[in-house]
């Protein structure tokens, strides 16, 4: 039997996920000044339009946000979700992130539920930006598994290239941002 790290990854179970979509899900909470502040400092993107209403409003109608912020915050873990991190780390002390802090419920099926991968790398993105969320906005998002491909690295071991597309909208159904994220999942 081949070692775990050399087993084929693009199985029928993985292929069956192509085209899987979430419903239109709502982000926990609303867009708030503290989250914007955190991203302004973290990027950093200290454009005063992110906090100075007088400067930003004539063009944007309100203060703005770092362009990709909504992509990072929309699937944040709601407070009622069970904390799975201790169990994930107990099962695999070398887990790459203990399951992370993203929302599990109402998400696409994680690739690791159907493929023996343990390590993720960010491989690229395609983004289209239409408008910024405003303070107090509710954010809705819808994701879809677009494609999976199996490739082999220089060491001959297989890895999966994953493509996931997510659209972000506000409470008025206005499209804010569309992101197609490309990832690499390795055993």
């Amino acid at each position, binding site marked *: 039997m081949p070692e775990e790290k050399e087993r084929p990854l693009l199985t029928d179970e993985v292929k069956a996920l192509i085209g899987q979509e979430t419903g239109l899900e709502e982000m926990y909470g609303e867009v708030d000044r503290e989250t914007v502040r*955190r*991203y302004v*400092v*973290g*990027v950093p*993107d*200290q*454009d*005063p*339009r992110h906090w*100075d209403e007088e*400067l930003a409003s004539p*063009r*944007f*109608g309100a203060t703005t946000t*770092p*362009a*990709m912020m909504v992509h*990072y*915050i929309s699937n*944040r*873990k709601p407070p009622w979700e069970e904390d799975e*991190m201790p169990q994930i780390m107990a099962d695999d002390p*070398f887990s*790459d*992130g*203990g*399951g*992370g*802090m993203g929302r599990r419920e109402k998400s696409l099926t994680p690739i690791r539920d159907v493929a023996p991968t343990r*390590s*993720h*790398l*960010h*491989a*690229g*993105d*395609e*983004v*289209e*930006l*239409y*408008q910024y969320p405003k303070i107090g906005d509710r954010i809705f998002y819808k994701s879809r598994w677009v494609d999976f491909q199996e490739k082999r690295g220089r060491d001959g071991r297989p890895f999966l290239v994953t493509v996931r597309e997510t659209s972000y909208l506000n409470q008025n159904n*206005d499209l804010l941002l569309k992101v197609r994220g*490309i990832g690499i999942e390795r055993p």
Partner: protein
Amino acid sequence: MMAIPVEQLLTLGPDGMLKHDETPNVEQLRNAKQTYFEDVNVGDDLPRYVHRLSAPELARWCITMENTHRLHYDLAHAHNHDNLPGALFHGTWRMSIISKWLKDWSLPDGWFWKASWQVREMVTANETIALWGKVIDKQEYGKYGVVHVEFGMVNEEGWEGAPGAASVALPYRGGEPVPYPFTPPDA
């Protein structure tokens, strides 16, 4: 439009590269002077953003986006488990820096519309990176023009870490600001 050519920048060494950083500060962003569609020519360079990454900044980005992925902060894990050269510069952080840079270039009345990029060479803490961009095409539409840019993010060794392409909408001299929310030219 007077950015130092990237080939020349790379001959200066990390400390010399940092002297050519053109990242605007808060007041420069507040008073951003518009680049009009007519100002831009094919072959022009975009402003050069140069930055030395530090381990605390990698951690700050993890905190900002609630990212527990350990290859960004757990050096022993990155070396010994993932065979990586160090704690890695995030794909998501590259994404945010690129988006900020294109947005800054379009201020106050243009719009960063869309981009795509790949995460290529691994970049680790203490490396110096330079964001470069060159205008490769421009097209006139009714209310605004669109400038197409190729870009990348090289480290001090000249390794390309984020090759990509983007489209930025710029107003005409004497014309109206680019519509907000943004309406693509073919919509």
